[in-house]
């Protein structure tokens, strides 16, 4: 474990945004780093698990279900993915 977690590069951020927009059926410009999946984009629990599952497959990482509580927007997803990649 390191205390310094490297930030995600632009390519990873783009991949994440593509995944989220595809699953939530949104255009890229409809989502910001801080817009909330559930409250602003109608995401239900199945959709958020879809996002988690897709991230695991895409990045070859393992995410605990409990991380869903942090994955409320793109910024939250970036943090969770960055930590998982650093493991």
């Amino acid at each position, binding site marked *: 474990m390191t205390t310094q977690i490297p930030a995600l590069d632009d390519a990873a951020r783009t991949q994440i945004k593509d995944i989220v927009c595809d699953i939530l059926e949104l255009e890229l410009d409809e989502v910001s780093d801080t817009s909330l999946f559930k409250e602003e984009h109608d995401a239900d629990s199945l*959709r958020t698990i879809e996002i988690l599952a897709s991230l695991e497959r895409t990045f070859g990482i393992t995410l605990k279900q409990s991380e869903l509580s942090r994955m409320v927007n793109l910024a939250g997803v970036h943090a969770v993915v960055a930590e998982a990649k650093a493991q």
Partner: protein
Amino acid sequence: MAAETGAPPAELVISGWAVSSPYGLGRTAFAGGLASGRRAIAPLDGADWPVPYEEAGLIPGFDIKAVLGRKGTRSMDRVTGIAAATVGMLLEQYGAGLAADAESTGLVLGTSGSVQSIMDFTRDALTGDKPYLVDPARFPNTVMNCPTGQSAIRHTLKGPNVTVSGGAATALLSLQYASRLLRGGHGRALLAGAAEEFSVQRARLERVADHGGAAPQPLGEGAALFLLEGATDARESGRPVLATVLGSRFRAFQDTARAGTALEACVADVLAAAGAAPDDVELIAPGTPPGLLGKQEESALDGLTGNRLPVRSLVGDAGAASAAFQLAAVLAEAEADPRLVDRLTLVTAVDRDGTAGALLLRPA
């Protein structure tokens, strides 16, 4: 719900129908295709469909997103798309009236789901880096009631939502289930019918099925749905009575050689229950399965002089939707031919797993 609004309906009628078939989407394409006698079975592109069949009856150019839009269709499988599109077409005709009574309007759909969806899901589980790296959005597709439930979600049908399955007799069983629900006071108007998809895995499985000693026939796909309700409800709602459902009967046979006897008894029973004679049957849409089963069906219908309406030879073996297409064909013919009014029409099915069934209708 209907249960509290008085006695169950004495007379059940079909007051609307919709179809998606190898002739295209909608009744016009289906009726026109059947009337012309044009075979809707076409060569398959082996690159798209790596299957042990040369040709099939596909819904031409069927594209879920083009028909249903992008929203809610990202993970939808083919049979669900076909069912939802066909339910939508039927509701379009009478949407306002039925939508006002969503809790009393339900759907009884005959389908065995999608073997393709089930097998794809397991394939992902077996080939991924971890055995659980599957797409959770596709999990509901692997449960056989998915087309029924999704159709209800898209079209807000809150009444009974039932999935039934019984091979080639599926659609007749589905109408029977819906009839009992209406008579039991569980709903007021039910869409009943069946849906089937063409898929690579279905084709592989069907190729080795029992075809009664004959070669496998081309497969078809599609759906037909019928609006079933009490005659009084239909009239009061301003919906046309297209046909009165006089009843259906089913029997089982242990071996194929007894299928004809079983079907003959079904036909005799539905006629007797309706107080009708064999000569009253003006039109028959048989299932015409291949091989021995087909010969058994023919022999059971020997005593009936009514015209035969060919369906399977034109659209293929539509699996669960087979008898739904036969019933749709009868209604199309009745619309076109005024001589059928108040005469009797018969739909029959004999399934390789041992069910024979007959449905008797009187077109209005």
